[in-house]
């Protein structure tokens, strides 16, 4: 649940970008870092290998400033997609308020997407989180590729979005779909504010 510090009047939401390796999670954050107003986005911390793959995680704080009575802060994380970093994915996933699952639309990544989605559910379960209760959005990245290379949104949705969560076709390199993903995920997370507090 989002952390609400009424005394500090601060709402902090942890959003995690999940998905198979090289699906474009870090690219999402990089785009957001460049596109959002500089005063409201912190520096992008990225622990990456020489081959530009996320080794541990990326972190991007987005401070929306004082919205109403509260300062709203989104903390965006990515997980390393490669299968052998499962422990790190678990760690990053801990305390997540919402997840953007970034699928790779390339045909040959089909299985990787499905494996990663299953991995995400397994990791959530280990944290005692029911994926049905957690705000999740799907992003089908690399939709800018020619039709011969990329799976269609419909096909990806049929394979991955069996829960019918909001989904977005995206081209994270150039921006389409990136902001919509963040926006929708952020709003879904914030909608849980009242219910969580009443239950606390």
């Amino acid at each position, binding site marked *: 649940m989002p952390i*609400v*510090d*009424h*005394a*500090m*009047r601060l*709402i902090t939401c942890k959003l995690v970008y999940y998905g198979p390796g090289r699906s474009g999670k870090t690219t999402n954050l990089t785009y957001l870092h460049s596109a*959002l*107003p500089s005063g409201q986005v912190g520096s992008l911390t990225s622990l990456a290998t020489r081959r530009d793959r996320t080794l541990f995680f990326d972190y991007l704080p987005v401070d*929306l*400033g004082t*919205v*109403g*009575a*509260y300062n*709203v802060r989104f903390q965006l994380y990515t997980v390393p997609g490669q299968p052998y970093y499962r422990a790190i994915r678990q760690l990053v996933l801990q305390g997540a308020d919402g997840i953007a699952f970034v699928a790779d639309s390339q045909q040959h990544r089909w299985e990787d997407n499905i494996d990663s989605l299953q991995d995400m559910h397994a990791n959530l379960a280990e944290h005692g989180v029911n994926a049905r209760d957690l705000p999740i959005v799907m992003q089908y990245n690399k939709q*800018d590729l020619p*039709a011969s290379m990329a799976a*269609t949104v*419909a096909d990806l949705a049929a394979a991955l979005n069996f829960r019918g969560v909001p989904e977005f*076709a995206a*081209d994270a390199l*150039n*921006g*389409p779909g990136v*902001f*919509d993903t963040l*926006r929708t995920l*952020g*709003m879904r997370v*914030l*909608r*849980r*504010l*009242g219910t969580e*507090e*009443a239950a*606390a």
Partner: protein
Amino acid sequence: MSALLDGSYRFEGFVVGASNRLAASAARAVADAPGSAYNPLFVYGGSGLGKTHLVAAIAHEARQQRPALRIEFTTGEEVAERLHVAIASGQPQRVAEHYQLVDLLILDDMQFLTGQRETQSELLRLFNMLQGSGRQLVLTSDRQPSEIPDVDQRLLSRLSGGLVVDVGAPDFEMRLAILRNVSLARGFEAAAGVLDEVARLAFGNVRELKGALNKLSAYQQLEGQPVAAADVRAILGERPLTTPPARIAAIIPEGTTEYDGFLADVLLEVETRVEPWRVQVGEAIDSWRQAGYLTGVLERALGFQAAPDVQGLLQTFAAAVEHLRGLEDDAAALDPTYRGHRVFRNVEGIAEALVVRDQLRRTALPLPAPAPAYTRETLDVGGPNQLAARAFDGVLEEPGQRFNPLVVHGPVGSGKTHFAHALGNALRVASPEKSVACLAADRFVEELVVAMQEGGVERWRARYQQADVFILEDIHRLVDKERSQDELFRLFNVLHDRGSQIVLTSERPTREMPGLADRLRSRFEGGLVVALTPRERPRLTQRPPHVAGELDRSFLDAEKMIWAWPDLGGRLIEEYR
């Protein structure tokens, strides 16, 4: 060219955005060189996203560049109907003959051929013929070829063989650009922010977007006044804003972006979801924290599931803080080092604060008082000392006002001590609640030195700073004692600012004290300076004859009281040294 073709559908009026850039580029390429690039060009996308506009623009542009070009713009439905008629009449070749004459065939809404196997076969033959002779095919559909059900695989292969591009839903910027174009074309003058507000609504296609603009235009005409941005959502039947529009308008400035819209949404959520009482308590915590107070009580209240009596809680907390502030003021007056002490910052520890304050009170030293023997009645006010006497009365009448400071100078034996102590006593009698400090400069210096040794200078200062009347004798004794003069300067300013009466005595005028700091001298002379003149006293040699059996009263004059033995001793030594 078909009558279906809308003359307004041109590239110039087609707004290009991220969702349709590829389709627009391909369409232009086809219009520039029909039959040589992207053949067939298959454009697909949801209803109302501009497919027809785009392919119609191809026709117009191609016609403009090559007037002789034969262009056919038709729909899948129309082709199917034409084929049915031809087949029914037993002359299916007539369709082929008709389309053989076409250089650029644009077939809109291909999806209507679903399930019409015979029509599809004829169409396949037609496509083979046209492509084989280098003529251009452009097709549109609401889905991509592979998703059109019941399509002949050969036809499917043919359709997918060229370039398949989609047009997606417009994003915010694109919606705004479309709205501006349409407004311009229709002469609709929207008020500031209206188009932005419309664009912020998530219309899935351009047709609906234009429909929204039509509605606003009609509304504006009907009302006879411009539609305001704040009313857009209500007019278009969208969810009304639950927070005051003015508040959102204050956050979202003119020239909004998609990001600003996001902020507005976040604002709505936060204000809708967070219970107001928590906001109120949170704000109080923040405020008290900034003032330096511990807010554990209020923080625990935030953990309640249901709203407590917030007003009562906050009022109780404020009252407790006031109590603490009073205790802190008391303590700081006795010892300034207690100003801001943690014990006065915790409303849950008022009992502890009381203990500290009371302990300070018990250990505080009283101010040195004037000797009670000296009174106004025994003061010599005759002759040249009348000015001093008037000053005495003036101070008594308006302490701290007219003659402040009052500086009295005169040689030894002139009655300065009597004057100063008598004035102190008279002020105490006149206003018993006033605190009077009366001390000699030597004691002032000695106390300062001791305070410095003990590290209690602040406390020592505070003791005198609370005096309502401050009498310092023999200020000439401060000459060349710089630190003492510094302290006196500091004390003088504090006392003078708060209206305390200051009385100083000296053996000589301040201008005759070269070791006195100028800043002190100027302040001393800023009040009233009066001189006391020594009176004639009978010398011991002139004593009246002593009558045996009677008390020798020669020492009992008006100034030197016999019951003030210690002082009397000092006076005697002064007299005879």
